[in-house]
């Protein structure tokens, strides 16, 4: 996957300082691993092999242990993701309150299936597990923002707005169209079995 990140990645100065501070919070450097993977994902968009090697070097951990941890957690991206990660809760309470219609609307507006990323790199659509705001079902999360009591109409409006915003912003850092890069499908297996 190294062609996804041609240059050797480097942490920003701010992130380097942040890492020094994070290391003081844990008696062993591996304690800082997940927080540092979050920083890396924030800066580089996703966790490519060179990025994981960088994290390993920074924390003096083996690449294998960094990989094992990164693989386990669904929110740590092992593939490029769209600028907007649209995560629709389809667990029981949201199902009871119409999440099927919400998913259908997202597919219609975005033209992609759950598990896929649009080829312009703007949207990744996913069905996710309970976001634990069931009293305000149906729910969804886009990047770090929660949306509650969503209706198909409110979702259409929201996504249409994001399409406009996204056209200006372009994809996330580190975006590469995996299909073009020769990695085949766009599927994002949400499963975290290593």
């Amino acid at each position, binding site marked *: 996957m190294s062609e996804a990140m041609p240059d050797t990645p480097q942490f920003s100065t701010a992130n380097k300082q942040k890492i020094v501070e994070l290391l003081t*919070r*844990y*008696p*062993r450097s*591996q*304690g*800082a*691993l*997940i*927080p540092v*993977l*979050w920083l890396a994902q924030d800066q580089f968009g996703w966790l490519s092999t060179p990025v994981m090697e960088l994290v390993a070097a920074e924390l003096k*951990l083996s690449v294998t*242990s960094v990989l*094992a*941890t990164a*693989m*386990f*957690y*669904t*929110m*740590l991206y092992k593939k490029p993701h769209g600028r907007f990660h649209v995560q629709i809760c*389809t*667990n*029981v*309470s949201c*199902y*009871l*309150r119409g999440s099927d219609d919400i998913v259908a609307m997202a597919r219609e507006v975005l033209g992609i299936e759950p598990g896929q990323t649009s080829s312009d790199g703007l949207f990744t659509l996913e069905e*996710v*597990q*309970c*976001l*634990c*705001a*069931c*009293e*305000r*079902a149906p729910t969804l*999360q886009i990047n*770090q*923002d*929660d949306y509650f009591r969503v209706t198909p109409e409110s979702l259409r409006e929201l996504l249409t707005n994001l399409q406009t915003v996204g056209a200006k912003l372009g994809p996330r850092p580190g975006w590469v169209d995996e299909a073009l890069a020769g990695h085949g499908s766009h599927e994002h297996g*949400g*499963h*975290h*079995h*290593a």
Partner: protein
Amino acid sequence: MPEHRLLLRRHLGVDFTKLENYLKHGGFKMWAKALELGPDGVTAEVKASGLRGRGGAGFPTGMKWGFLPKDNRPRYLVVNADEGEPGTFKDRYFLEEDPFRQLEGILLGAYAINAHTCYIYIRGEYWNSKNVTEDAIQQLYKANWLGKNIQGSGFDLDVYVHSGAGAYICGEETALIESIEGKPGMPRLKPPFPANIGVFSMPTIVNNTETLAAVPVILEMGAQAWSDLGSPRNGGTKLVGVAGHVKNPGLFEVPMGTPMREIIYELGGGILDDREILAVIPGGSSCPFLTKDEIDVAMDFDALKTKGSMLGTACITVIAEGTDLIKVMGRVAKFYQHESCGQCTPCRQGTGWLHAIAQKLDQGAAGEEAIDLLIDACNQIDGNTICAHGEAAAWPIRSIAKKFRPQLEAAIRARLAAA
């Protein structure tokens, strides 16, 4: 019906994310009382209150604190704010709207067990919770309610937010510990228990957010008064949720042991479109489902056990007549398969079968005999795994298969006829 306002304080309309407001409403008053009581006195008070863990298992909190070995190793307090049990939405309230309640509880708890470091493990998806809690911690450091020599007491405490990254299983306390150590969230075999060998191999107490948030309230009102509020052996008040097919979904606070029917029909406003109840999940999807004839039960740990279910997180999901239980079961099975850490064969394979059978049923590709297959698969998981995740999958699905057989059979016949 009696709603209580000890923990849930939305009605005051105060912005409790600001320390000055929290202090104005009596916040951190219990620190002086804790210093008076001393660490053992605080533990004794919590023990006497009968407080039982709000993470789902209901283990007596004071007793857990008392299990720490009497040695000189550093101790850790770890807060379980990994709220992820489907159907649950209670810890989110403290994390987003009243973060200092939990933090005052942390200070009191850490003092009681003599811990100087606390990690709050917040679910990765809870961005707002992480931001609000982090900001609250910074306010406390500035005001010397955290850090060195807190308020001149000589007691030091550092508190850090540790973000999860999308793995339900990290709510299990030993998986959570692994995750703080930077590893995959694979539950550990017990014993050793965390009280002896926990995070970074040191003695560790893991408590749920709501458990710790109750501690300042208990110190303030006194152990006896707290205990008197609830039912016997189930003292105090409890946050309860009602969601699903109800008219007024929401989060409420009631004395432990409040009748479930009242919670659903009075606080929850009754069933949407005045339909009948088909099924009720008492406290998150790991709990065996109840039929409409089983809801005359007190919402507490012991009463729900006698009905073959559990209090769990006490966030109720109401499912109305007319709902397709094959679909509901499919969502439950999918969840537990997806979230299995995979290290025990009965859980990894078994949850895979449950999901596969549920999918077949949904597609009209399996007949009524699949119901027995489901029960069989559940029996093979039950009791054969490292952590309770296996049972969390098996118990609810077995309860659907056994208690709702006529409804499942009707749904199967309808699919076969359509095919």
